[in-house]
């Protein structure tokens, strides 16, 4: 089956930060792509390079950062693009949502003014039309009394409501790709559910592709079509969401899944922490960076494994022993039958 042309394709992306202690190799050759209307989930531990790789794509890294490789938005190269052009792309074709909504909002302007401004920056519309579009957007993201809220300031809103405003801003110009970095991490579960639903609606309304960065594998399981797992600045596993969750072939992915507590005391076993910590990204020693924490590690893990196809069409893994690793995960690959609350809400949709 031919994959549709990707909207955003990242290839061999490298990001280095020169620091007093040496060069931090935050992203070491990362490739991924996302198709129209698709959702790509990026997971991994703190410091894996998830945010830095997204910021590199958006051209939002601080000055000392050195970026190489490629990131193409419908063929247009973003790496090295003139700031003026890239600025226009951001907002118009690419939108970004951060964990802290206040980092995207101006505290001294009304919500409506900011939304209208976002619309006007990229479209020739009257002030009045921009204002009514702003109210429309607020309504679309589920803000009650949108007309009244538009006249309010960000600080008058709860965290969840602010994040909705940011989503409305992201939608303002029908972007082709929305990159969301931990958009629900600071929020309570019920608010998280509201925001995930709002993001879903935003995607339906704009047809945008989404790159969803999160440490929460549960969120990714429910939203993503494809998943990449990052470790120490690299992609160590990539595949369809079912392949990665039910047939993980990389010890790190398995360890990450094994470390999660599951809702419901159903005796499905304890969660197992991953021993040790990720390596420093300065002067990374040769070899597989996960080896010191890996229960499958052997003497011949010497060379850093490259991402290779293990199961067509697209399941890729960076591990020398992915075959043994796969069988260790338990054969069937069927979703574990667990009596969890997922069924609480009953009736099948």
């Amino acid at each position, binding site marked *: 089956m031919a994959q549709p042309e990707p909207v955003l394709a990242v290839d061999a992306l490298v990001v280095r930060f020169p620091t007093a202690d040496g060069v931090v190799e935050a992203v070491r050759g990362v490739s991924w792509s996302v198709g129209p209307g698709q959702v790509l989930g990026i997971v991994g531990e703190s410091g894996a390079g998830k945010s830095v790789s997204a910021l590199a794509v958006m051209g939002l890294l601080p000055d000392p950062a050195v970026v190489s490789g490629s990131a193409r938005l419908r063929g247009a190269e973003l790496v090295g693009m003139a700031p003026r052009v890239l600025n226009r792309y951001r907002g118009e074709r690419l939108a970004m949502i951060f964990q802290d909504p206040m980092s995207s909002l101006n505290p001294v302007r009304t919500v409506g003014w900011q939304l209208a401004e976002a619309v006007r920056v990229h479209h020739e519309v009257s002030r009045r039309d921009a204002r009514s579009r702003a109210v429309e957007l607020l309504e679309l993201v589920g803000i009650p009394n949108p007309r009244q809220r538009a006249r309010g300031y960000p600080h008058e809103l709860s965290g969840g409501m602010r994040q909705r405003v940011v989503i409305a801003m992201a939608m303002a110009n029908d972007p082709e790709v929305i990159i969301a970095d931990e958009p629900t991490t600071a929020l309570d*579960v019920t608010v998280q559910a509201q925001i995930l639903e709002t993001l879903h609606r935003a995607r339906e309304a704009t047809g945008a592709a989404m790159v969803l960065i999160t440490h929460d594998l549960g969120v990714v399981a429910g939203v993503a079509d494809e998943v990449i797992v990052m470790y120490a600045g690299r992609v160590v596993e990539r595949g369809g*969401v079912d392949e990665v969750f039910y047939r993980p072939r990389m010890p790190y992915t398995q360890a990450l899944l094994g*470390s999660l507590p*599951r809702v419901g005391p159903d005796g499905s076993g304890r969660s197992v922490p991953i021993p040790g910590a990720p390596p420093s990204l300065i002067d990374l020693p040769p070899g597989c960076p996960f080896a010191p924490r890996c229960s499958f590690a052997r003497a011949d893990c010497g060379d850093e494994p490259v991402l290779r196809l293990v199961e067509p069409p697209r399941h890729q893994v960076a591990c020398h022993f992915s075959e043994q690793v796969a069988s260790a995960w338990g054969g069937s690959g069927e979703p574990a039958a667990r009596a969890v609350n*997922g069924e609480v809400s009953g009736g099948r949709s």
Partner: protein
Amino acid sequence: MTVLAGASGTGVVVGQPVLAVRDLVVHFGARRRSRPPLAGRRSAGIVHAVCGVSFDLGAGETLGLVGESGCGKSTTARAVLQLVPPTSGSVRFEGRELTSLGTGELRRLRADLQMVFQDPYSSLDPRMSVGTSVAEPLRVHRRLGVHGEERVAELLRTVGLDPAHARRYPHEFSGGQRQRIGIARALALEPKVLVLDEPVSALDVSVKAGVVNLLEELQDRLGLAYLFVAHDLSVVGQISDRVAVMYLGKLVETGTAAAVYQHPSHPYTQALLSAVPQPDPALERRRRRIVLTGEVPSPVSPPSGCRFRTRCPKAAPVCAEEEPALVDRGQGHPVACHFAEAVDPGARCGIG
């Protein structure tokens, strides 16, 4: 002796509870504002943070207190330890009333009741070596003695850290390690009860499991009782024997972890549990979330009757008039809802 929490079956603690909390109320005074938040509202008002919370904690047991931010969990935890003065109600530790104790007596009792905080970054003094930090409670309670150094080493070993690290400073440790240091410190005086306020929330997933497992091991070994406050339902479900669900200052459902997670009967508990994403794509595709509308109302002017009614899919006129008591309504555990119904996992149900 058997003590019942509430009037019913599953809140049972066998033997005398180490901690018995009854009708705990915490109100915070009015914060004056130059401009009232809403025109027409009279006084800035009282924050009704905790409004009549009762529970028991048995020896060696874990009670998980869950709820969303602002629902009063942390205030409850602090009021139990008298770190916040309760407005009314009773907190008994091994039968002794804490609310009427003088500061001196309270300080002595604090050795038995310790707290572990959420933020492993700010709860340790950055200028104090880890050894000094862990030894501090011993020094304050004049229990350092000649074997102090040995005791600190033992405590660090207990939480899985290398005693040689005693001379290092907090910034040299990871988040998980710092949380372990915080736990070692809380264990220094051999407490009977640990109150843990979001102890693993700030930690990476891979590290969280290590701290949770450590807490379980310590409980088995030392017979500690935990009041475990968290918003993360997965972690609470894993560690708790019993669970209490809190909404806007009140408990809405209590019971064994199995009862609450497998037969959630309050619409709020059902919504909460249905919102937790599971790392299981097929399950996630299949399940329907109960997405609550609106937001938690202000604790300054909580709704009349049932506090959840403004967001409840089952709300009826009676809910505004009559406050539902936390009692067993045939679910086998206490639920504060006029329309409580147990839902069998997998069974159909008619919410909404």
